[in-house]
């Protein structure tokens, strides 16, 4: 039944592809090439003198303890964001999928946070959890727990994880809802008649059938945690205290835009690019095999 369109000659197909190729070239290959080129250079802020340094930027970065610490922060941050966002979204989706009154209302409310820009979401959390002016921040301090994320690295990390995950829950929720609705009711009803309790039905039927969705979301969430959380971290903690919430992407910004150290920043982004390519390849190669479509 598959339709196959066959073009005569090669001109028309290339012409039709051209817009997409142009966009990819201009917005991906050109800047990526610039970054790779820049990673071999060392120059002053004004671009008046430059020096070709080979791989020195890379060896400097890899010998820098603050860079390795940022790498570890990224691992902690990304896995915490991905797992909490996926877990909570799955729980909420399963609850909202039940036949209860006001399902549509709940669904809408749960999807809303996705429309909030990361920086605005971060400011929202800031106003809630600021130790002096935040409603909940003051409440926690009032309960006798010393809450000050400006000085406590663990608390700062918790706060950025919660703020970043909160935004992603909505996105995951939409996909899990769609995944749940595509599970045939008949299978679940048959299991129920056979005497399977809700928990057992979830783990033996729903969860395995949701695997493709979960796998897709896992990739998306990790990429989100790696790259899209810059605004959240910038507005909430600025990478501090110390460098407790400085992730790899945040460090690229700090070294490139604030410290005007372009060579190092370019080298870091090249490393980041390599990590993401590797991560995605590994996920598709090894995890995908275990997923039933």
């Amino acid at each position, binding site marked *: 039944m598959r339709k196959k369109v066959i073009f005569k000659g090669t001109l028309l197909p290339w012409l039709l592809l051209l817009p997409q190729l142009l966009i990819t070239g201009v917005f991906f290959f050109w800047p990526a090439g610039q970054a790779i080129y820049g990673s071999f250079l*060392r*120059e*002053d*802020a*004004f*671009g*008046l*003198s430059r*020096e070709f340094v080979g791989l020195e930027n890379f060896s400097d970065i890899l010998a820098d303890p*603050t860079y390795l610490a940022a790498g570890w922060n990224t691992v902690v941050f990304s896995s915490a964001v991905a797992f909490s966002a996926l877990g909570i979204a799955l729980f909420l989706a399963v609850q909202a999928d039940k036949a209860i009154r006001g399902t549509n209302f709940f669904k809408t409310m749960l999807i809303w946070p996705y429309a909030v820009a990361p920086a605005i979401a971060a400011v929202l959390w800031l106003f809630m959890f600021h130790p*002096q*002016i935040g409603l909940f921040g003051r409440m926690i301090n009032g309960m006798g727990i010393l809450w*000050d994320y*400006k*000085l*406590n*690295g663990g608390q700062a990390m918790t706060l950025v994880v919660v703020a970043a995950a909160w935004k992603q829950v909505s996105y995951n929720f939409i996909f899990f809802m769609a995944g749940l609705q595509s599970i045939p009711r008949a299978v679940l009803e048959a299991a129920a008649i056979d005497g399977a309790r809700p928990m057992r039905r979830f783990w033996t039927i729903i969860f395995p059938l949701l695997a493709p969705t979960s796998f897709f979301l896992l990739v998306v969430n990790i990429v989100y945690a790696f790259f899209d959380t810059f605004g959240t971290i910038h507005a909430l903690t*600025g990478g*501090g*205290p*110390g*460098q407790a919430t400085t992730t790899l992407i945040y460090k690229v910004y*700090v070294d490139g*835009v*604030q*410290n*005007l*150290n372009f060579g190092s920043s370019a080298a870091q982004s090249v490393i980041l690019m390599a990590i993401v390519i590797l991560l995605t390849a590994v996920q598709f190669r090894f995890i995908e095999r275990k997923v039933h479509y």
Partner: protein
Amino acid sequence: MFRRTLMAGAVALAGLIGPASAQQPTEIQFWHGLSQPLGGLLERLVSDFNGSQTQYRIVPTFRGSYPETMVAAIAAFRAGQAPHLVQMFEVGTGTMINAGRAIIPTHELLTQTGVNINFDDFLPGVRGYYAAADGRQMAMPFNSSTAVVYYNKDAFRRANLNPDQFPTTWEGVGQALTALKASGHACPMSTAWPTWLHVEQFSAIHNIPLATQGNGFGGANAELRVNNPMMLRHLTNLVNWQKEGLFRWGGRDNAGEALFPGGECAIMMTSSGFRARVQREARFDWGVAMLPTYEGTQPANAIIGGASLWVMNRGPNTQRNAAELRGVAEFFAYTARPEVAGKWHMDTGYLPITRSGFESARASGFYTQPANVGADIPIEQMLRGASSENTRGIRLGGFVEIRVIMQEEMEKAFQGQQTPEQALAAMTTRGNAVLRNFERANRGG
């Protein structure tokens, strides 16, 4: 239609940035980093200048915070679109002075245009901060502040302390903090700008070097010297006071300021420019005092913060024409006029940067008005003591980054993750790495 609009736009744009004809005033782009209300006052000063003559028209544009303005100006230069004038905060001075042909030093500008500005009229601490090692003026001083103490006199009264006499020594401050805590004040002291106050100003007032080469004035090969007994003593005190609940870390940059006007913290150390906010918001009796020193020190003059004006070339390969340079020089001369400098000082709360501006403010009876009591304390603090190469200012490349490093290491010390000794050692190691990087990158420039 679209093409026509585009062409009209291009023509308009060319008129905006290209050399002006004889009838049109020469436009001069001026990027600044002052948010409201200060930005509005700056724009008023500029429009006063524009109204005072017809040849030049200065166009001020707000480009975000100081660091954002700096980054924007540098990026614009790389793209061949730099503004004629940029307001640069004091921390960026080291970077700008080493910027080679990206900038036009003020002394060169004045020689080329024949405009005369009497720099002897400027306060030494202000002028020197923006001068080369041989004394030639590199940037035009504009808005300068210094750091002072704000304290809650009502809280002092409750703690049986003399509300009219803030302790002049850190030992005395320590006793006052204990008394304030004993009287039930939850936060006796906090600070804004932690490194500017407790490393940079601290070193200047105690007349100890922050870096070799006269704090970097002598050359780009300077090394940090913050790991010294005096700094160690002070940081140890702050960390201990924090543990005992006498001092609270209020966050980086000016985040700590929020703790004072509401009465939460009794003592706040921050910029003299904080005055307007305290005046507006504080619902208690407050006072201003000079920064304390440790016993046995003869206090030297404090250093400045704030910003200066730098003249930039348009791009790596484009120069300014004579009319543009002349306009910038005329504007500089205008800002140094006694009545203009005095008005700017009185309106904004920044330091009067010229003696004649100070006299002009004094002659108008500004300091004797009840609302302005203590407004001259920052000036006195700038002029007290003998100045030395430790009190001229700081001229380190990459200092924006070094400040962040110092704040990070302080935060780790306050968290208890490292001792004050380790913090100072880490600041030195990491800061020196930045300095060496900067030295290397600017070798050819």
